[in-house]
């Protein structure tokens, strides 16, 4: 069931109730949960926030709190699985789902009370109609009873009920006629009915396959929740900023098309100007200010040096082939033409000459066409508070991602989650800065890995897709987001260097050993470069390949294109996938 009127059907229902919020490990979900928490705080509603990773985590978290809570809110998780079947909840528990993963599970969509999806059904694409995928199970039962009775006695009493599917009135009128049908005719009818049924099932399977074939992402949950806050007139600058961070994550990780992002930008801009006018806090120290500006797709350049940021950003690095010597020369050429002295380009951006800093954006923009990096410009928001703090939304996203991935021996994933959610508040600037430093390390590591991989020609092609196998456990790449970032960089880099004409049309699969002791490895599928829409067919493909090769696949993450696999099964699995995709 969809809920469109979040204010009345969702929020008002929950007031003065206790609620369990289950949050997935991604930046968008963290932002959404932060906004929700502050809303609940305003209304003194008791809540419990539990971070979870994957389906097993969801089940465990629910089982622990089972019986104590009657309202459960799932943020960025659970939309794509049949919640009722997975968790086996009691009748009085209500689930609210705020999930940006698509496609939504049809059982959730057509649940009449227990599962409520926050969102607008008009925005959802081609959800199959109820009749085409669900069969009236009552009719089925009667059918079966009927068959048994007929087999046993062939008595008349059963025949009356054989028309279980037809509505009552016509059934009654037809009854006398039916009674006269001979046994043969009845048998014929049953065969016909079975055939129709089989056809219907085939059709249903086709529809379901079409529906679930691609996995993609819908609207940012953070933005959706922010709009709820706005309708409740409880929005402020902080909440808006979190929503912006949420949607920026979707853009930067390639979860949504840039077109969809641009459309949302307009809405956000109106929120920004409204809130800026509303707040009358003129004090520079305490006031936060959000500005819309055109910015560059360069990683963390405000907190890094220009050369490094250019080199470690995927877009500029792939277009200029910065891992080669020629690329390096071209970068210098670009800098010369920009009029940016190397001394300045190699020191931290914040220490650069003020004039150069002010002109940096226009300089890059002017030369973008010439150096074939036109897409480097995009619209985004920056947050400034105090005298020194100025962060772009992308800075936040990269920092939070780095924090989420900074799992170490003494630091559990949950700790990372809490740290990331702390880093969002303005009081914990040092956490954010530490995250930014971590993100720099991560991006530098990604670049080095890409460089060595491309130089050693480690990207192999099977004809229908590329694959790239990381042989060793890696401090960074054993985590889904980092591996996905790496895989994307590798694919774009490979496409930029290779001569093969069909390269931009091929997807890439990257794997990295996860845990040497257990012999598991992480597998990530990346959509082809030329593919504009971020739809990813790997979820279904992985599933089928696993069935064909009889390997056990652990599809625990809510991103279906990220799976875990036994290391020893890997070759068998890739073979099956090759067969499947050719």
């Amino acid at each position: 069931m969809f809920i469109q009127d979040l204010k009345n059907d969702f929020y008002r229902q929950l007031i003065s109730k206790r609620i369990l919020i289950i949050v997935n490990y991604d930046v968008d979900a963290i932002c959404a949960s932060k906004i929700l928490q502050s809303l609940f705080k305003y209304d003194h509603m008791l809540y419990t926030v539990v971070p979870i990773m994957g389906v097993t985590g969801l089940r465990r978290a629910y089982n622990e709190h089972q019986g104590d809570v009657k309202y459960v809110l799932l943020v960025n998780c659970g939309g794509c699985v049949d919640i009722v079947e997975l968790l086996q909840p009691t009748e009085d528990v209500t689930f609210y789902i705020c999930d940006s993963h698509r496609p939504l599970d049809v059982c959730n969509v057509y649940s009449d009370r227990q599962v409520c999806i926050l969102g607008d059904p008009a925005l959802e694409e081609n959800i199959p109609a109820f009749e085409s995928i669900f069969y009236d199970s009552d009719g089925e039962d009667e059918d079966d009873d009927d068959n048994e009775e007929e087999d046993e006695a062939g008595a008349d009493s059963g025949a009356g009920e054989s028309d279980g599917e037809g509505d009552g009135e016509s059934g009654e009128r037809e009854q006398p006629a039916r009674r006269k049908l001979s046994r043969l005719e009845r048998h014929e009818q049953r065969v016909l009915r079975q055939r129709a049924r089989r056809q219907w099932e085939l059709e249903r399977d086709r529809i379901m396959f079409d529906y679930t074939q691609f996995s993609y992402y819908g609207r940012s949950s953070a933005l959706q929740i922010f709009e709820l806050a706005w309708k409740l007139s409880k929005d402020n600058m902080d909440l808006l900023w979190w929503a912006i961070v949420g949607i920026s994550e979707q853009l930067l990780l390639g979860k949504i098309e840039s077109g969809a992002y641009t459309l949302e930008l307009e809405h956000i801009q109106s929120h920004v100007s409204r809130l800026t006018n509303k707040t009358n806090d003129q004090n520079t120290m305490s006031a936060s200010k959000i500005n819309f500006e055109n910015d560059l797709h360069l990683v963390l350049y405000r907190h890094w040096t220009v050369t490094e940021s250019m080199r470690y950003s995927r877009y500029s690095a792939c277009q200029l082939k910065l891992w080669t010597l020629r690329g390096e020369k071209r970068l210098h050429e670009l800098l010369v033409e920009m009029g940016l002295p190397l001394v300045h380009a190699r020191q931290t951006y914040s220490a650069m000459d003020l004039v150069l800093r002010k002109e940096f954006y226009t300089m890059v923009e002017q030369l973008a066409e010439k150096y074939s990096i036109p897409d480097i410009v995009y619209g985004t928001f920056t947050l400034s508070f105090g005298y020194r703090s100025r962060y772009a939304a992308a800075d936040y996203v990269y920092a939070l991602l780095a924090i989420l991935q900074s799992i170490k021996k003494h630091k559990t994933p949950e700790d990372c989650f809490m740290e990331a959610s702390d880093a969002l508040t303005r009081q914990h600037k040092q956490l954010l800065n530490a995250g930014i430093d971590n993100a720099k390390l991560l991006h530098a590591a990604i670049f080095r890995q890409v460089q060595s991989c491309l130089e050693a020609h480690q990207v192999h092609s099977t004809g229908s897709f590329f694959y790239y196998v990381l042989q060793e456990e890696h401090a960074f790449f054993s985590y889904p987001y980092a591996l996905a970032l790496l895989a994307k960089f590798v694919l774009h880099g490979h496409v930029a260097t290779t001569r093969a004409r069909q390269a931009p049309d091929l997807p890439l699969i990257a794997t990295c050993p996860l845990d040497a002791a257990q012999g598991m490895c992480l597998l990530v599928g990346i959509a082809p470069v030329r593919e504009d829409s971020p739809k990813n067919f790997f979820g279904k493909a992985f599933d089928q390949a696993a069935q064909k090769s009889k390997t056990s696949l652990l599809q625990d993450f809510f991103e279906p294109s990220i799976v875990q696999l036994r290391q020893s099964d890997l070759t068998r699995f890739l073979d099956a996938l090759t067969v499947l995709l050719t």
Partner: protein
Amino acid sequence: MSRSNKMFGDKAFDLLKDLKRSAQTIPAFDDDGVRQVLEEIKAIFEENVAQASSYNSSGDRSLWPLLNYRHAALQRNKRCLLAYLYERMQRIKALRWEFGPIIPGDIKQALCEPEVQFFNNYSKSLAAYMRSVGDGQGIDLTGNLRPPKSLYIEVRCVEDYGKFELDDGEVVHLKKNSQHYLPRAQVETLVRQGILQHIA
């Protein structure tokens, strides 16, 4: 003297310095140090008694300054010891306000027997006083020394606790790394015990 650089009163002074430097709520009672200071006092006193008696018999006034000096050292040692005990007493009182009537195990080890007795007595009198005020109902003075900003606080669970029942019958499952928004009055003790962490 073998410890020529040591002066009278050094030990007592060290005792105080150690207490001041310690980062814990209350350091372990320095039994050894206190005993040494007491021994020093005793030794000084005995020397003084011996010389004073010889003065009585001989009437030699040349030892007067030495006698006075020793006496001053003795007094100083005494003051230091008293200061040590007083400071510890203050901290023990603070413990009562901070942790309630039951001392946590690790802190209890740091106290010596008379101190534990003092704590119990102090606790008793405080409880008796709290019962007497507040129109016959009693009032928990240790609760909020400053008025709270809000009735609810956001807490994060630092260790597994299990089920926790609130006054209104709601049961909250406190598990490590979950975050909750709960009534301040009811979870305050858990925060003090270190099971929950208050997020500002």
